[in-house]
């Protein structure tokens, strides 16, 4: 069955149907991982182009959705690495993560609380990536750590940090993970 579908997708027209079926899931993941619409659009396009090129190597051990997610995460990570190398964003992000002083809780005098999507987008890259993969898309810590090429312990630390920041920015009480 899978091979028949793969054969159908090997034509550009057939692949368009595959794209239409999965674009929402891929764009959703990219949107939340990058926190930026344009970056998410770029990563989504790159994901499908990469999937087209890698389609002959696709092994039916995972579903196409899982396979596409993996490619999408790699695209986002590669894009971030490229941007970090260009603009030294990595240093800024690391400084952000190392900052022990949490930002002012949203909902205070000046700042209104953020909605969930905007709060997620405002997180530092590392924390946002882990939160999106684990808390939104249901990956285990081990899977997320593998996808992001980080240690499982780092993954847990990022998630803890992300939850703290989210709670603060949304004006919620801090929750224990």
């Amino acid at each position, binding site marked *: 069955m899978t091979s028949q579908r793969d054969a159908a997708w090997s034509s*550009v027209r057939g692949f368009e149907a595959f794209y239409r079926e999965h674009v929402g*899931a891929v764009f959703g993941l990219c949107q939340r991982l990058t926190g930026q619409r344009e970056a998410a659009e770029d990563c*989504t396009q790159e994901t499908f182009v990469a999937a087209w090129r890698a389609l002959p190597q696709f092994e039916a051990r995972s579903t196409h959705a899982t396979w596409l997610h993996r490619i999408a995460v790699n695209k986002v990570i590669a894009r971030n690495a490229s941007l970090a190398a260009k603009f030294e964003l990595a240093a800024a992000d690391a400084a952000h993560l190392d900052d022990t002083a949490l930002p002012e809780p949203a909902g205070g005098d000046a700042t209104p609380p953020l909605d969930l999507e905007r709060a997620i987008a405002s997180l530092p890259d590392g924390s946002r990536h882990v939160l999106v993969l684990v808390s939104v898309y249901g990956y285990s810590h081990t899977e997320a750590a593998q996808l992001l090429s980080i240690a499982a312990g780092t993954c847990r630390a990022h998630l803890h940090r992300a939850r703290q920041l989210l709670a603060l920015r949304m004006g919620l009480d801090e929750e224990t993970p």
Partner: protein
Amino acid sequence: MNKKPTLSVDQQLAQLPRAIAPARDLWPGIEACLKHDAAIRERHLRGADARSTHRRRNFALGLAAGLAAIAIALIATLHPRGLIAPLAVQADGGAPRSPAFLRTRNALEQTYSADLQRLPRQTQARLVKDLEIIRNARADIRSALAASPQDPLLNELLADTWQQEMDFYANVSSTTDSARVRWPL
């Protein structure tokens, strides 16, 4: 009067829809890339066909050279020195001077030269190198013959380099009937 949501962060995260429709259709950009890929692939395939033809010709050449080398090795192993009479090559190691040989060789060499010009530069370079290997081997044998000019095996090997060179010309130039051309000594 901010009213806190009743759901926890985790509950809210779990309720987020996984799919989000992009604001614009991303397919045209993807399709352009796929078609560009397909065009490149087609060009490569066409190039691969041409390369495959040249590769087959080179393979035939290599096979002929390999068979000749095996034949030389077999002769050297199976025939004790002195049992085979020296072939009629020139004492100075030059090409045999029989009119039939010279006619055949000239014809083959001319055809080869004309064919060579029509081949891709890379193939030309490889063929020139192959021919050089045969000629270098002949030079080595000539050096050995200078020390022992009557050595039958060396004379036979030398004669064989002429045969190899003729075969080389014939293999490059022939299209359908690349049969081995036995030149008269």
